[in-house]
């Protein structure tokens, strides 16, 4: 330790103390830390997907509040739960006039993000006697939630819900949607 001045020793001591403090703090936090958490939407709280909330105004906070130009929240049709109805209340605006083909003349989605096609061969004379696949185009959907509100008991099976796309979500510390969400449906949770 020759050549070390009093000043050096004090400096080392101070630095060592601060480093130890930082290390202790990291240790304390790391003991309870987990890998990754991300903003997630609880469909049981979201007014658009919550059962019983029907005929109320659609909440479009997820589409309007996100800091991204096109919201990181998207409607996802859980296909294992989809009824594949001929007249899907989330695809068609069932309050619109009936067109010449016997189907509602207008679609519900303002961005035309839902695709509809028959599964297998559909009899042109009896198109209702078939199942139809409804696929949401993730690049068009902005998470406005109208289809989510329309597809639930008793009109639909509730297969559509809003979800955060974790690859797009910037994981803001202070998620703008979560602050605006009237139902407090957003939480930062571990991703399974």
């Amino acid at each position, binding site marked *: 330790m020759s050549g070390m001045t009093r000043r050096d020793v004090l*400096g080392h001591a101070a630095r060592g103390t*601060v480093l130890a403090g930082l290390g202790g703090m990291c240790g304390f936090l790391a003991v309870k830390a987990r*890998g990754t958490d991300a903003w997630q939407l609880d469909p049981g709280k979201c007014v658009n997907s919550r059962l019983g909330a029907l005929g109320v105004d659609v909440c479009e906070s997820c589409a309007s509040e996100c800091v*991204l130009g096109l919201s990181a929240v998207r409607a996802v049709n859980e296909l294992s739960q989809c009824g594949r109805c001929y007249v899907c209340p989330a695809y068609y605006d069932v309050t619109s006039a009936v067109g010449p083909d016997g*189907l509602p003349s207008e679609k519900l989605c303002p961005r035309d993000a839902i695709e509809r096609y028959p599964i297998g061969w559909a009899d042109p004379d009896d198109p209702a*006697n078939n199942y139809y*696949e409804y696929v949401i185009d993730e690049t068009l959907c902005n998470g406005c939630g109208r289809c989510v509100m329309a597809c639930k008991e008793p009109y639909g*099976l509730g297969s559509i819900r809003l979800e955060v796309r974790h690859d797009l979500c910037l994981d803001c*510390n202070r998620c703008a949607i979560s602050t605006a969400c009237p139902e407090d449906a957003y939480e930062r949770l571990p991703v399974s």
Partner: protein
Amino acid sequence: MPPRVLLGLICLVLLPFPTGAQPDYSRPVDVAPSEDAIGEGYVTPVVQRPLPLSAARQLLDLALLGAALALSAWIALRRRSRSLGVALTLACLFYFGFYREGCVCPIGSIQNVVLGLAEPAYVVPYFVIGIFVLPLAAALFFGRVFCGGVCPLGAIQEVVLVRPVTVPPRLDRVLGAGKWVYLAAAVGFAVAPLAYRDFVICRFDPFVSFFRFTGTFPMLLFGGLLLGVGLFVGRPYCRWLCPYGALLALASRYAWRSVSITPGRELDCGLCSRACPYGAIDEMRAVRERCLACSRCYGSCPVHRAAAGGPAS
């Protein structure tokens, strides 16, 4: 298949909706049809659920942060090159700023860490702990090398600074207290009861709107104003507002090595004092707490200019 015929009949009955009025639409099925019921070899398509940033990606970001800090220390303390410093700053501005869109950053992570310390139920991810602690540890060894070379918020101010004016030292000192006030407020808002808890640092981050090309009008105005002032006054956010800058200033006091202007390697001429836009050179010596390790002083030093092959003054 009788169930499907029945389904079709129900649907046909339901079809003629009255115009304009809510039709008596009722659901044709009670449960989702199974793959067998749909038939024709139908397989339910997989619903795409993208996962967040993978652990590997987070490790890469931490490694890049560590490497950038080491590089910044090397450039400012050993290589003493302004042009390399600018190159590193720009690279970090593009990666941590525009590409990673400003998140996660050590400045905002202060509040997560404080909340993690104060509240047992609140969990700070490993990634965020690393982001918070790396620049502080670097400051303990080499001074504020994060500010000068790595921080994208500093970098965006560094590039707009075209005509630096000298701020009177006393005014600089008074305004500099702002970052301590901001730090105290940030800690207060982090540990406040849930109803008042607010991640103010992220909320009032002036430059993240520019990194993301989106933002509310007041925040764009605030950021634009700071950049406008920053044309003439060096890094107003870093010197007077940044709460992480306050922590780094504190840590850099105990730094092992720091940016130094030495008679052996530089010229004792005082040109550097005039070149420093941050008022960090007192009597031709760099002040650790205020030095942002930008290497401008070396860029103005006749010795280094001559060594770089340029004109000496």
